[in-house]
């Protein structure tokens, strides 16, 4: 079994305080179970997290950098999409 036969997996970890899983890196593994254990061994040895997601890299579809202009630039001048135009009453906390 050589490493080049093993697919690449992306690893997402949720930290103790965190609510979301964050991408932390990738690794090689023969299947999901091995990917999970490898992720535990490689990415959680310093108490980084309490939950792991792994997904085979081939299942991730990334946006094309060449399309960045049409994808993202149009949002630049749409400040009204941010919910900053409301007056928050004084007795509402934690906003």
């Amino acid at each position, binding site marked *: 079994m050589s490493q080049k036969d093993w697919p690449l997996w992306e690893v997402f970890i949720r930290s103790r305080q965190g609510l979301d899983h964050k991408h932390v890196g990738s690794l*090689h593994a023969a299947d999901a179970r091995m990917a999970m*254990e*490898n992720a535990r061994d490689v990415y959680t040895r310093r108490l980084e997290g309490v939950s792991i997601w792994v997904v085979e890299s081939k299942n991730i579809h990334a946006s094309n950098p060449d399309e960045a202009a049409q994808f993202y630039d149009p949002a630049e001048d749409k400040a009204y999409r941010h919910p900053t135009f409301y007056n928050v009453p004084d007795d509402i906390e934690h906003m």
Partner: protein
Amino acid sequence: MNALTDYTLHLADNQLILGQRLCEWCGHNFVLEQDIAMSNIALDLIGQARSYYQYASKLDGKKSEDDLAMLRGEREYKNLLLLEQPNGDFANTLARQFFYDVFHLFQLEDHLKSSDESLRAIAEKAVKEVRYHVTWSSEWMIRLGDGTTESHARLQHAVNKIWMWTGEMFEASAFEKDLIEKKIISNPKDFKLSWDQKIQEILTEATLKLPLEEPYQHGGKDGLHTEHLGYILAEMQSLQRTYPGLAW
């Protein structure tokens, strides 16, 4: 020395010597992920060894934990012969690890019920680590046993070769008999059947065969070691022997 000190040293030596053996793989493993996985296990064991040496030092009242770990002679080490056997190939290291991990877990679960507070406290921390070790080694036994023709043949060969060293785990030494009598620990024979069942279960799934002959090697608990331990100690102790009192 009393039986509890001897037993604590036996436990300390088990983890130290196997930890040292696993450290030999660091930087040489077949994939990066397993290099880290095996080093993690090594560090778990060395951490446990430290707890036991600290306790042994307290019981002993004279030697420090460092002296106990690093400055004893070969005949004073009480680790199982199984654990000092050379790494060989990955299959050989794995078979050694698997047989020990399963035993180690039963042993710690027994310590959780011990009347000795320190053994119990160390077991409470170590048992979580060793549960993962069992998961890790069982999985790899199944993957490689039920893998390719090559991996199956290598692992079967390793199982056959390492088998003769496994009996010692269940033979109570004089210091263990003393503690069994005082009800501080159970007789390791009491969990031999559970060990057999677990080993058989994993080997069956791994399509591997258990050797038929009775494992016959023993002596480690009494300080009678194979020629391999001397080399391990020479490497481990060379700095302390050459520069006594050397610190980081």
